[in-house]
């Protein structure tokens, strides 16, 4: 039984015996030119001199296959974006897979193909990997882990470079990924109108940093789990200044707003997979926006607020009438508290 003939992943695909060898062989074939390894116990890789950036992330996505992507795409984007936002150029990825026995082989192929396509778009190579198969119910279909290595061709971007008065820019709309996935998972009916924003953003970051003077972009962060609110809280605490944003400036797609209103969730708490929050020198704000908007993933880039020049931390959302409300950090899931 080979990958081609087996309809679904079975436990023997993970035993290290012939069946696993075949599985790995087919995965490598599928990855094609996105794969750079030599099937040794470790990959041997050339690295330009200087500092490297390294990150790792595990991916548990429910559902793992969605309208305009899957867990394979997210696993590459997540790690590539984490490297890009510190100013590194992503080079290499590892790929670890934990597969639940019974996953249709066709689904596994889809994931690997997504990894390949996304890696090619991002210009990174998968250099080594691992597969484990666990019994039914011991994992939910498929979990991935990617680690990434990147190199610095310019000064790293750091949170501590952020200054009072810096502008806060979002590279794109928020809320879409969460609404898309929730909609598929629960059958809410928004899944065709609201798509996940999942995308590798290193190309956009590269063009942006090339277009503006060094230091104009102080720091950036991909707005993933925890949402915009969590990112802004992190910066406010790190800089020791309040971060304020305008409710009305938040880029939220119409249908997404409709969905979040119905669901009773605030888009600032939703996860995204292709959106950056950038902290920008006010003098370079226009150039940054122009550079972002020139890119296919940054067409809706917009300034949403700024880092306060006054003392104190905290995140504040401004309403259109000018009144500000403190945005609390969520401790966990939001509980009803209106009495």
């Amino acid at each position, binding site marked *: 039984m080979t990958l081609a003939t087996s309809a679904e992943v079975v436990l023997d695909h993970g035993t290290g015996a012939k069946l696993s060898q075949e599985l790995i062989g087919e995965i490598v074939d599928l990855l094609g030119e996105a794969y750079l390894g030599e099937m040794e116990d470790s990959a041997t890789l050339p690295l330009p001199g200087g500092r490297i950036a390294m990150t790792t992330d595990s991916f548990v996505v429910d559902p793992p296959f969605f309208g305009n992507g899957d867990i394979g795409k997210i696993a590459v984007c997540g790690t590539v974006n984490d490297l890009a936002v510190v100013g590194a150029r992503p080079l290499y990825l590892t790929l670890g897979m934990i597969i639940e026995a019974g996953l249709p082989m066709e689904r596994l192929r889809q994931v690997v193909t997504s990894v390949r396509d996304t890696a090619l778009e991002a210009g990174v190579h998968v250099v080594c990997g691992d597969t484990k198969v666990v019994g039914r119910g011991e994992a939910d279909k498929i979990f991935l882990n990617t680690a990434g290595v990147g190199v610095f061709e310019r000064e790293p971007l750091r949170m501590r470079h952020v200054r009072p008065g810096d502008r806060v820019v979002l590279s794109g709309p928020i809320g879409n990924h969460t609404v898309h996935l*929730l909609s598929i998972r*629960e*059958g*809410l*009916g928004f899944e065709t109108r609201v798509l996940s924003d999942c995308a590798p953003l290193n190309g956009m970051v590269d063009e942006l940093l090339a277009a503006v003077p060094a230091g104009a972009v102080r720091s950036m962060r991909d707005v993933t789990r925890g949402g915009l609110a969590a990112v802004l809280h992190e910066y406010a605490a790190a800089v020791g200044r309040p971060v304020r944003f305008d409710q009305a400036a938040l880029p939220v797609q119409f249908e997404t707003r409709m*969905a979040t*209103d*119905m*669901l*009773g*969730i605030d888009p600032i708490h939703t996860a995204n997979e292709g959106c950056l929050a950038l902290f920008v020198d006010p003098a370079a704000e226009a150039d940054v926006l122009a550079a972002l908007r020139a890119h296919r993933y940054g067409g809706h880039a917009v300034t949403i607020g700024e880092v306060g020049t006054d003392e104190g931390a905290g995140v504040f959302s401004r309403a259109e*009438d*000018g*009144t500000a*409300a*403190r945005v*609390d950090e969520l*401790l966990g899931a*939001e*509980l*009803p*508290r*209106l*009495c």
Partner: protein
Amino acid sequence: MLTGTAARRRVRVAGVVQGVGYRPFVYKLAVDLGVTGWVLNDPQGVLIEVQGPDHALDAFTDGLTALAPPQARVERVAVTRDVVPVPDEDAFAIRASGLGGDRSAIVPADSYVCADCLAELRDPADRRHGYPFINCTNCGPRYSIVRALPYDRAQTTMAAFTMCDPCRAEYEDPLDRRYHAQPNACADCGPRLTATAADGSAVDGPAALDAAAAALARGEVVAIKSVGGFHLAVDARNGAAVARLRSRKRRDAKPFAIMVRDLATAAEVTAPTPGEVQLIDSPARPVVLARKRPGALPGTIAPRNPNLGVMLPSAPHHHLLVDRPGLDVLVMTSGNISGFPIEYRNADALARLFAVADLVLHHDRDIEVRVDDSVVRWSSHPELDEPVVSFLRRSRGYAPYPVDTGVPLTPVVAYGAELKTTVALSHGTRVYLSQHIGDLKNDETFESHRRTARHLADLHELAPRVAATDLHPQFRATRFAVGEQPVDEVHRVQHHHAHMASCMAENRVAGPAIGVVFDGAGYGPDETTWGGEFLVGGYADAVRVARLRRLPLLGGDQAVREPIRTGYALALDVFGEPGAAVAAFPALAELDEQRRHVFATMARRGVNAPPASSMGRLFDAVAALLGVCSLAEYEAQGPIELEGLLDRDHTLAAPDPRYRFDRTPVDDLVELDPAPVVRALADDLAAGVGTPELSRRFHSAVVRVVAEECALIAAAPRAPRDVVLSGGVFLNEFLLLNCLVEVRRAGLAAHCQRQVPTNDGGIALGQVLVAHARSTQ
């Protein structure tokens, strides 16, 4: 005057006896009776030594309570007889305040303009004619201007003003009405009014009042600095002005309160009962709910409500405004930007209120403590011996008066809940309850919450080592109390247990008791939302024996703002699927296909749809299903408008077996399911029964399930016989009165909240008692 047979007594008077003209009263009493001795204020109240013949001393001590000045509240008069007489004493003296020792004197609350001051204000011959800050020992601001105790001018915001010679002479003359009236002032030496326009131009003194009156007469919105903070005022007889205020405040529906010139005007625009008149006329000057006279004023002041909140002026400049022709009724609503507490500092008001107001009338007597208007309701029922006075908000005129529980308490500070928060501190048998503070989600409100806790503790020199707070992990007060306060113990008190303990405490029910606690939402120990609970227990602990069937809150807090969500959830729960739900209740047709689908999915799959056993939400749901209120602009709008349909007629609907709740054992408690009531409502709606009658049938069904459930609980061996009713839903007058009647009819003792609000404004009192009980266990 010295006689060889004179006896001497020492008398301690406790209660509200400082800052209310008590010492001059004692002085006059002594002089009238020809006795000698002295009186002084100390931190426990008033201390007296008095010497003379026994019969005079008896008359004197009797008079201390019987003849006390109007603002005083004498709680205790403790007499020590046979004190060694002082030879050669020949007069009675007022001595300087004593310091130190136990601090249990009570800070007086703010009060009205007394009749004497009002007469002077209106007398062209008086030196304070038209002076907007006139006051005396019998009236005027107190708690709102006090920085520290003892209550002395230097410790109030009047410290900034130096009295002129005539004012000082009054202040120092024990026989003058202004003897030690700390805010004493006149136009020569005291505070002044200023009117500032949006362009920054300002006029002072009498011209400021003229400017405000002229603006009101033109239909403009005027922000007025009152006793405890700013109001926003318009001419209530001018519909366009009311509309202007509504659009600027972005409030379409929430009822506004009105201020009337006098009782005659009150009787012209409302139809107050004698009890209501008594409340309106009381020195606390609360807003009192009284039945509207249809057509007397624009309906937009309090839409879809049988009542109007009416109050008399509480400050001299209010009188000076409403005395003017054509301005005898003003809308007076809280001077704040939506979501924020009322403004009370000039700088903030001038920076923010021009978003709503055309003119700001302010003055240079600072407000130390923000104090909102109190709102009260006087209710009666033919089958109840006593009227029920309910606080909808307990603040100006009442705070910081304590509740005396009659039980010695551990010093505890309680931080309340999250909305309508108050702070409470215990000392001796008393629990001092702060003014209404508000919604702590707002930063400024939260800051004033912390400041109030500190201020109340400082005023009474308390440093409690035990704190109490809600069980809800995300409440700001909880996080603050647990994280920042230097205390030895923090007791997390379940919300509904606190409601129950609050009602027990003010009624001095030792417990155990049956607690019927109905409100909007509170955090339960099972991590679900509670709000329709039957508890049995005492102060230390209570167990839940029955609850309302849970409904999903579609979208969490969003469901509170959109009652139609809960209406839909209820209809789905009863009728199973969207089509049947909409067929049963045509009001649901307001939901488009997409919403119906998404909401139904959220309910079925539990997507951001936390389950809640809340009675408040059941009222929301029924209000929405009957087409009364689908979106709530203000808190509890659905239940309030549903009750409004009853028009304050408290007659129960005829018994109808269809209008019952199913009782189902679930785990170790009883679940009360309103499904039969909902089906009956749908049937009767289809049969053309009018909405007011449907509301009455629903209300009556709730009353009956309360009485029946209490009877069943009480039927168990050794079950308690006391029933306490608490929680915000019991602001519903029909429910409150009828539950009291029906529970008593079932042979049980029914109690409700009278001294503190039944909503979360009364939570802090209950938290104190629970923390005390656990701390001393």
